Structures are given as C-alpha cells and as structure tokens.
C-alpha cells in the first residue's frame, strides 16, 4: 500500500470541511463515537442535517470563532492507499499555513464553487501549489447540485481554470464535478451527472501515479548524525546516518563528501534489518565508507559525477511567516537539510502579489504572509540544488536569531 500526502485549502463556505468529512465518513474512517459526538453537536446547534464539517473542527478557540487557524492533519485509508491530508485554511491571512501544508504534499485538492467559478482564493491556492512544486492538482468543481448538475456550468469552470493555469508550472491537472454534501462523484460515480465519464474523486486519489514524484537521478545524502557504537564487536564502526534525499546509492559507488571535496567508496549501506545493496529516497539508512575520513552532521555525500551547487550567494523565493517583518541587516539561522549556517537578506528583488501573480518591484517592505524573491548571503557555503530539481535539498527555513521562531520558508532558485 502506497502513501499519498495531499493538501486542501478553502474558506468556510466552499465545502472543504464537508468534503473532507465525506471522504473520512465514506471511507469508514470515522468511528461511531466520533459520529455520535458530531450528531449531538449538530442537534445542539439546531441543524437539520448532520454537519460533517464538525468532524474536522479542532481547537476550542477555532470552534469559538468558527474558523480554522492552523494546519490540521487527517488520516484515512482504503485497501489501495493510505492518505494524509494537510487541511489548511484558505484565507489570505493564512498563506503561511497553505505553504506549510503544501511543503509535504504531492497533490493539491482545489475546491471551486460551481456557482462562483474561479475566484481569488482558487488562484492563490493553485499558485502556492505551483510555487511549492506540487506535481498533481485535482480541481473539484463543488456544489454541482446547486447548478442543476449542468455539464455546461462544469465546462465553464474548467475553461476558466485552464486559462488561468496556463500561467502556472503544473504538469498534471484533473477536473471532477462533485457535490460534497450529497456525495456525488466523491466515492461513487454520480447518477445525476451521467455526462461525466471520468473517475470519482476517491478513485482518482487511489490510482494517480506518484511513483515518479521522487528524484531518482541526483544522489544526495545529507548526514544527520554519526553512529559510533562503543562495543568491542563494532570497534572501528563509523556509520553516517541520514535519509536519502535523492538518487540511488549502491554499495561500491564512488562518492564525494561535501563541502570538503574528499572522495571515497561506499563500503556498506546498513539498516537494523540487514545491509542493503542499494538505497533510494526516502529511506533512512547508515552509510559506511571505505576510507577513514572526517564526515559530520551537515555534510552531504553525493556521487562523483553528479554534484549539487556549493555557494554562499543564493536566490530564494520566500514566504514570510512572522508577525514582525525582517529587520534591516538582521542575521538569521538558515537551516537546509541537516545544515545550519548564518545568513542575511542582502536584497529584496521583488514581492509577488499572490492573487494576480504580478511582481511588485517598488515595495520592499516584507510583512507576514508576503511572498518575495530575495538575494541571501551565508557565512559558510551551503550545499543545495535548485528547488524545482529537488524539494529537499532546494528548501530552507529561516530562524530568528533572538526569538528562535521560524520566520520564513524559502525555495532556492538558480
């Protein structure tokens, strides 16, 4: 069984919570006691039907305000796949949450109200998905029951979205007409829309091909920690522990250690369950080298003939996540893979209006939820790839040097 992580975003009214509630309910991931609690809450509120959106309500403060303020993670499984949903609020104030949810997802579910068509929020969510290089988008045209299940209404939305999406960099976009409230085309094909010949939403989620989403070309192994057992039987053992971030490593491969540039050969790839001949992403393993050289956390093991960039000047597209904007000349801890360096923002090249996708070149004042293209300078060389090539070695976060808060997320561009 494969694992598929997908993200959703939406506002209170577009039926996102109802859709998630429906997926959980129809895939039998909701237990009786949870359902009973939701039924009781619905009755207390004087609702006529069971409000499935209550299934995804979280914290007390959220329920009081009737909004979602944070990313919530939901789980369901079918016999074919296990799903992790990062459920994020869609309002502009929550761009940082959308970015967070998108960062770990390989698919985005975009909800469009059939009556209103593509609106600002649809564009915002899709644009963020494309900036974070989510390879697959499913556009659910929801509330088809309110437009008489009309094929024409559906086609109109598809045309609108298609035109907008031509400006985005997304390879795989699919469209499904649904009614989350009644369940049409969510799990089963709808009898109300016999003109729709495609698969239902769940069917699409179960079968969409995600096997090629990982980078299997550029071998990258960021070292997390060094394993040195203090036992006689493993006297000279030095294992470099980490999670493969790209490519395929094999025993006997000639490798380079960055940033030192030293070279060696892979002696063994070890796991608790026994040694491996080859390892690929996202496996956690330990690599032992033939030569006794100095390797530590923050170093990267790569193949001799395929190396990442090493440098101190980087172009970053960042999303600012803190209520206080960057202070002029401020230093930040920059974390990328297992590496940590100090960095400054040298120059704001432009900001991006995430509703229109236009560049704003005059305004350099970065505030919370802003997306901006910046030039950064690091104190020590960073080892990286372009984000579009590798989402792990091409991503970074900034940590405020005084408050230790995570203040920005960035993708590296070359």
């Amino acid at each position, binding site marked *: *069984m494969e694992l598929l992580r997908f993200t959703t975003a939406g506002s209170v009214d577009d039926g996102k919570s109802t859709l998630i509630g429906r997926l959980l309910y129809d895939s039998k991931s909701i237990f009786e*006691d*949870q359902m009973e609690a939701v039924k009781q809450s619905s009755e207390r509120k004087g609702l006529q039907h069971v409000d499935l959106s209550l299934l995804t309500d979280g914290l007390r403060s959220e329920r009081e305000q009737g909004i979602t303020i944070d990313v919530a993670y939901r789980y369901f499984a079918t016999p074919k796949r296990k799903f992790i949903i990062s459920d994020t609020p869609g309002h502009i104030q929550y761009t940082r949450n959308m970015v967070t949810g998108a960062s*770990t997802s390989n698919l985005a579910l975009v909800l469009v109200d059939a009556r209103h068509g593509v609106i600002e929020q649809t564009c915002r969510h899709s644009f963020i998905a494309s900036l974070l290089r989510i390879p697959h988008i499913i556009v659910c045209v929801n509330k088809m029951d309110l437009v008489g299940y009309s094929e024409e209404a559906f086609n109109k939305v598809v045309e609108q979205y298609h035109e907008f999406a031509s400006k985005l960099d997304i390879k795989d976009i699919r469209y499904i007409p649904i009614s989350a409230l009644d369940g049409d085309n969510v799990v089963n094909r709808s009898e109300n829309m016999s003109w729709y010949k495609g698969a239902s939403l769940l069917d699409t989620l179960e079968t969409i*091909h995600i096997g090629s989403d990982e980078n299997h070309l550029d071998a990258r192994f960021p070292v997390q920690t060094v*394993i040195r057992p203090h036992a006689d039987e493993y006297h000279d053992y030095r294992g470099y522990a980490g999670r493969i971030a790209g490519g395929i490593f094999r025993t006997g491969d000639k490798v380079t250690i960055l940033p030192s540039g030293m070279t060696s050969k892979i002696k063994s790839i070890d796991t608790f369950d026994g040694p491996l001949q080859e390892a690929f992403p996202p496996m956690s393993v330990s690599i032992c080298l033939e030569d006794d050289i100095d390797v530590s956390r923050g170093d990267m093991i790569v193949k001799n003939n395929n190396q990442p960039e090493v440098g101190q000047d980087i172009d970053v597209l960042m999303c600012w996540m803190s209520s206080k904007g960057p202070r002029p000349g401020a230093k930040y801890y920059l974390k990328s893979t297992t590496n940590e360096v100090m960095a400054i923002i040298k120059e704001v090249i432009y900001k991006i209006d995430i509703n229109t996708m236009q560049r704003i070149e005059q305004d350099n004042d970065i505030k919370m939820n802003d997306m901006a293209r910046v030039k950064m300078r690091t104190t020590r060389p960073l080892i990286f790839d372009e984000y579009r090539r590798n989402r792990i070695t091409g991503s970074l976060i900034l940590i405020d040097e005084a408050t230790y808060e995570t203040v920005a997320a960035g993708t590296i561009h070359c």
Partner: protein
Amino acid sequence: MYNKYYLNHLQELESEAIYVIREVAAQFDRPAILFSGGKDSIVVTHLARKAFFPARIPMPLIHIDTGHNFSETIEFRDKLVAELGIQLIVGSVQEAIDKGRAVEERGINASRNELQIVSLLDTIEAHKIDAAMGGARRDEEKARAKERFFSHRDEFGQWDPKNQRPELWNIFNGRKRMGEHFRVFPISNWTEMDVWNYILQENLPIPSLYFAHHREAIFRDGTWLPNSEFLVLREGEKIEMKYMRFRTLGDITITGGIESEADSLEKIVMEVSATRSTERGMRSDDKRSDTSMEDRKKQGYF
C-alpha cells in the same frame, strides 16, 4: 509502469520516524523517550533502536509511575530496559503527592491521570531533559491533529496551540532558551491501524494485557473497568469475570477494556480493522469534557 524504487506506507512511516528520532539525537543535549508501557511507546522505542543500530539507544527511558499500574506493564518495562541496556528514569506520582506537589483527587471517579503532569514536568526539570519523545499520534484526538513533530514548551512546560512554530518540509527547528524544552512525536503520522500492522510486521513483544485474557471487571460508562485495589464500587455495580483485552494502556483506574476473543496479533489486527469506535473512547480521562485533551496538553500533558 512498475517501479521497484518505492516504499510501502509502513516503510515510509518507519523511515520518517527514524529521521525524526535522529534529528532529536543530533539537535538536543539531553533527550529522553517517554515510556508508558503502551503499544505506541513500545513502537517508538523499537524505532529508536533501529535509528542508532548497531549502537545502543543514546538516551534514557522515562516512565511516569502513577502508583496505579498494571503489574504486567512494570514487568514488561523492566525486561525491555534490561534487554536494551539503557537507563530508566522513574518519576513517581506518589512521591509528588507525599511532598505536597500534587493533591490526590477524591470521589468515585478519582484518578491520578492529571497528577502525572506534575511528576512529568518535575522529572524533566530534575534531569534537565531538553527533548522528551513520546508516542502520541495525530489521529488519536482532535487537539493532537494540530500538533507538530517538534512541539515547543515554555519554561513552565506549557503548550501554546495558537503560537506554534510552522513546520515545513522535513526541516525541524529545535532551538530553545534555557529552561524550555521540546516534546517530539516521531509517529505523529501513524494511525492506530498502522501501529498494529507494524507490531505484527516486526513481531514486537507487547504486554499480555493487549491480548484477550480472563479478568475481573465492572461495567462503567460503556466500558469494562478492571478490578483493582484502587477501584471504588458504586451502588449496583458488581464484579464479573470477563474474557477481555485492552486497546490502550494507561493507569489501571481509568483504562477500560473490551470483551474480545483476540488472543494473537493477527486477531488483534483483524479486530481493530473491523472496530467502529475510537481507542480513546475507552479512556475516561478523555470523556471529562470536549476539550479535556486540549486543556491537559496546554498544561504540559504527554
């Protein structure tokens, strides 16, 4: 197209958890594993073993002892610690009560569940633990659905759900000031089903309490509460002999069981996959109010 370079969901979840555990060892000076004797902390401990193989787990286990334990849990804990050859730190709720740091609850439903918070925070402080790893999962409870892998706690050990650090990709920010600490949850993305399937796949030993056995119990609030020296009978309640098992393990006074025939891991997996109620539905600590988990978590609960 068939692709041989892919992991199934349990392999991917395992790899993710090992990555998180190694980040803890790398980013913190004095990490520890919170060990309750329940299946989730058993899985976390097993994953830690895999993460540092062939070395020993480079951190101690912490057990918060309410004094109201199942004896099976304590035996299991001691055997595991001896096998792993690592240190065990026990935080005693009885000691906190004796010292006047905590006050015993009274009444028919009295439990020491909330008192664990005091002992846990005292133990973390006394041993200067800067990262305490636990087996909490996001699917367990709605307040946990928004929990981070690396969850920051202030100098009072408290959780501020509205002011959590965003967590992106697989980059974890473990920076903290003196006196603050982190709770880390390597199996955040696992469901109850994943945990059982993994225990079956790895053939992990678990306390006998999880398997169907004969036991004296009383029926209260929709679940079978085990008879023990701490149980106060209500009027009309009677002790019966039941063939039963536990889906979750906590304090003996609050852990209800279910009638079950599942006496093997295979049968448990089948039972769990067919079941229609949540595991925490058996826990009276979560039934106190709609937000009882959120409230306890803010104070510093597991």
